[in-house]
């Protein structure tokens, strides 16, 4: 570290926090690759988003406080920002995915002919009031 000796109260928690953050983030990314469908793939990266970022930022705060000989807390800005924006991002993505899945399910039996369209109209008589053309508004079913 540029020849500056870090004190012991920085190195021990810093080491633990950095190792924990690396492992958590790596496990989250592996879950992103391995899990089968989108709705289960939403979950693992949030581990790296919240805990990994938090651990790295606390370690960064410790190191810069020890180097500057005074409390340095400007990493709290990133923490605050990530904590505020991660749920917003996740919720918007989830709503987009739900909307797209519903639209895909609605559009799937359409090219099979008039019989299946009539059967579908019998099943869901809510949707018969609407014309069968595409209607891309998301709040039509509620």
């Amino acid at each position, binding site marked *: *570290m*540029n020849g*500056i*000796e*870090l004190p*012991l109260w*920085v*190195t*021990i928690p*810093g*080491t633990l926090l*950095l*190792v924990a*953050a*690396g*492992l958590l*983030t*790596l496990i*989250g*990314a*592996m879950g*992103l*690759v391995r899990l089968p469908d*989108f709705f289960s*793939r*939403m979950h693992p*990266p949030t581990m*790296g*988003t919240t805990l*990994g*970022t938090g651990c*790295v*930022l606390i*370690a*960064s705060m410790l*190191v*810069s406080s020890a*180097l500057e000989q005074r409390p340095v807390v*400007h*990493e709290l*800005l*990133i923490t605050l*920002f*990530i904590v505020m*924006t991660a749920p*917003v*991002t996740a919720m*918007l*993505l989830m*709503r*987009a*995915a739900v*909307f*797209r899945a519903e639209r895909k399910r609605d559009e799937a039996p359409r090219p099979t002919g008039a019989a299946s369209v009539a059967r579908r109209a019998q099943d869901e008589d809510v949707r018969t009031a609407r014309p069968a053309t595409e209607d*891309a508004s*998301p709040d039509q079913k509620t």
Partner: protein
Amino acid sequence: MNAVFDYAAWFASLCFVLAMLLALLRMFLGPAAQDRVLALDTFYLNGMLTLLMLGIRSSSTVYFDMALLIALFGFASTIAFAKFLLRGEVIEP
């Protein structure tokens, strides 16, 4: 004791870069568009963490500003992509 901390910092950087590569793999594989957007989200977050690790290892504060900028732009881009997937348009008239 500093050597142990250096090793931990290297290990964390390596983990973040590996996570970025895995997110890139999901971005290429992803069957639907929302998978790719989620992978992009993970990708920029891990890039931000890599920059923070660079800042810790070189003990300078320049990387902090870049990390904050990446967080801001990544949030804006993910919101824009999600809005586009949801409505077909980013800014509606």
